[in-house]
């Protein structure tokens, strides 16, 4: 196995040092690594495993358990659409079908130009103003087909 890239390793080591005093530091570390790189680079795993005295398989096992952590970079923008019941009651399925058609991708995929990744989310706590969406961390309520088009126009 090749050595992890030195740039990644040093940044990850910094992040680990920042979190070393925490009780149960692995999730905060993974969040911080993802915030730094936009995903969890493969090369980060052995560094984390080594510093936390875990096996690489254990770190990978934790990372892969959680929907938030991605092994590959997302598109430049991430559109999350709520698929849960309260949003379904307001037409979320129809809106999601429109978004998938418009983008020409399925859930978890990124458009060919790398502009937009589409992710499902199960509830954003906006259930009284659904269908709900999140665009790069910004919440949007009462999303219909036209609103999807507007949101996509804003980011593309």
């Amino acid at each position, binding site marked *: 196995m090749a050595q992890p890239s030195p740039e990644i390793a040093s940044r990850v080591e910094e992040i680990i040092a920042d979190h070393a005093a925490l009780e149960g530091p692995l999730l905060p570390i993974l969040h911080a690594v993802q915030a730094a790189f936009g995903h969890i680079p493969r090369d980060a795993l052995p560094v984390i495993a080594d510093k936390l005295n875990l096996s690489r398989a254990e770190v990978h096992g934790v990372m892969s358990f959680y929907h938030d952590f991605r092994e590959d970079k997302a598109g430049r923008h991430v559109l999350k659409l709520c698929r849960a019941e309260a949003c379904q*009651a*307001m037409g979320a399925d129809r809106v999601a079908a429109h978004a998938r058609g418009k983008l020409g991708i399925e859930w978890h995929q990124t458009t060919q130009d790398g502009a937009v990744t589409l992710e499902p*989310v*199960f509830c954003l706590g906006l259930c*009284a103003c659904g269908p709900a969406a999140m665009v790069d961390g910004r919440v949007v*309520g009462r999303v219909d087909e036209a609103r999807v088009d507007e949101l996509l126009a804003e980011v593309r």
Partner: protein
Amino acid sequence: MKIYVPRDAAARALGADAVADAVQAEAKTRGVDITLVRNGSRGMIWLEPLVEVETDAGRIAFGPVAASDVAALFDAKFGKHPLVLGQTEDLPWMKGQTRLTFARVGVIDPLDLDDYEAHGGLTGLRRALDMSGDQIVAEVTESGLRGRGGAGFPTGIKWRTVAGAQATQKYIVCNADEGDSATFADRMLMEGDPFTLIEGMAIAGIATGATRGYVYLRSEYPDAIEVMGAALKIARDRGLLGDSVLGSGKAFDMWVRVGAGAYVCGEETSLLNSLEGKRGVVRAKPPLPALEGFLGKPTVVNNVISLATVPVILEKGAAFYKDFGHGRSRGTIPLQIAGNVKYGGLYECAFGLTLGQIVDEIGGGTATGRPVKAVQVGGPLGAYFPRDLFDTPFGYEEFAGKDGLVGHAGLTVFDDSADMLALARFAMEFCAIESCGKCTPCRIGAVRGVETLDRIAAGDGAGIPLLTDLCHTMKLGSLCALGGFTPYPVMSALTHFPDEFTGRQKEAAE
């Protein structure tokens, strides 16, 4: 002039930030001196962004306000304007409520500790600091408070177990994973009145001898994460947290930990594994988390609303709180009315209203104006209730008696276009996606459930008894309520709307 524009995520999702910017800009151009407060939401989500101005006659509400309305509101000097609703406190939605846990939400500036104190904050904690741990636990037990996270376990009894455990370190863990669809009470409380949760956790710590606390907050709530983080810093700076809580000599400090998008991590033992940095797999009980919880130490795990209700119980006394309610469900419950509903939002009231009162009277029926077909109560693991069961009073035992659950008190309203088979299929699909994988009936059963429902949808009636059997197996053979309760939405859909399952046979045969 003091102007309130909510910073609650739902208000922001409906344009509150643009309204706040417009208010600032308009005030500046006109040279009007204003104080802009970004408060929590009053809970009337259909009126968000709800703008309020403070007047001698109390706060006057306007809504829903768009940024483009702001100039006209200034022209009208926030008086006569088509969007004026009247005094906020006099609106029917507000007047009908008993706001105990949510008394300050929407009222105060969430990050102003003085405003918090001026509205009764810290009274409960101060009283607790003059009591023994046993006395605090007794007061909480006496209040009848039951866990608002779903299981309804008496909070005082849980605390007693932790208080009685001997250990070098104990923990208070707040479950702010709020993954259920139709629930947002935790989010609104944390965004609108974070000090109440901090105060509640400090009281829990003092009562049980726990000196450290964590709020496990889902990553889907960036606004709540931000407000809680800011509030913790203020609380620490002002001596509400730290080595000597309010100068009492008793220590308690707490931190926010962010989840990572796994629904099952709302289950308390999965949550503890996640907090420890492990896969969020459910642990077998015993040992109880109260005895062997976070890092193997005695741990109170309580929902946000359970903990945030403790301050008012300590402030006003167990008897005051217990006086509200119905049967064995004491106190108040923040109902979250969501989905296809005319008046959606948060409504705190004593237990005991019927489902029909909640949906038809408070919620005003559907947003689409079509008939209400079904209401899912208690999130994705909760049952679908048809109109026939609308006389069920809102209470733990009452809902259990109808093969349903109160859960975290979220209600999703559906109109007559709802496809009950599709909703049953979704319940199984959700369980399959979110299963922690520990037990076969849940991990494999949910996948089989989806397949079976697809067969039924294709007209294969033989799938129905298979589905019933499968639900039975999942109910009995699952370690936690994800696999164990997914049969509730599925079986309730099948039981109350059988035609939508058998009807498919005819359609296919014709």
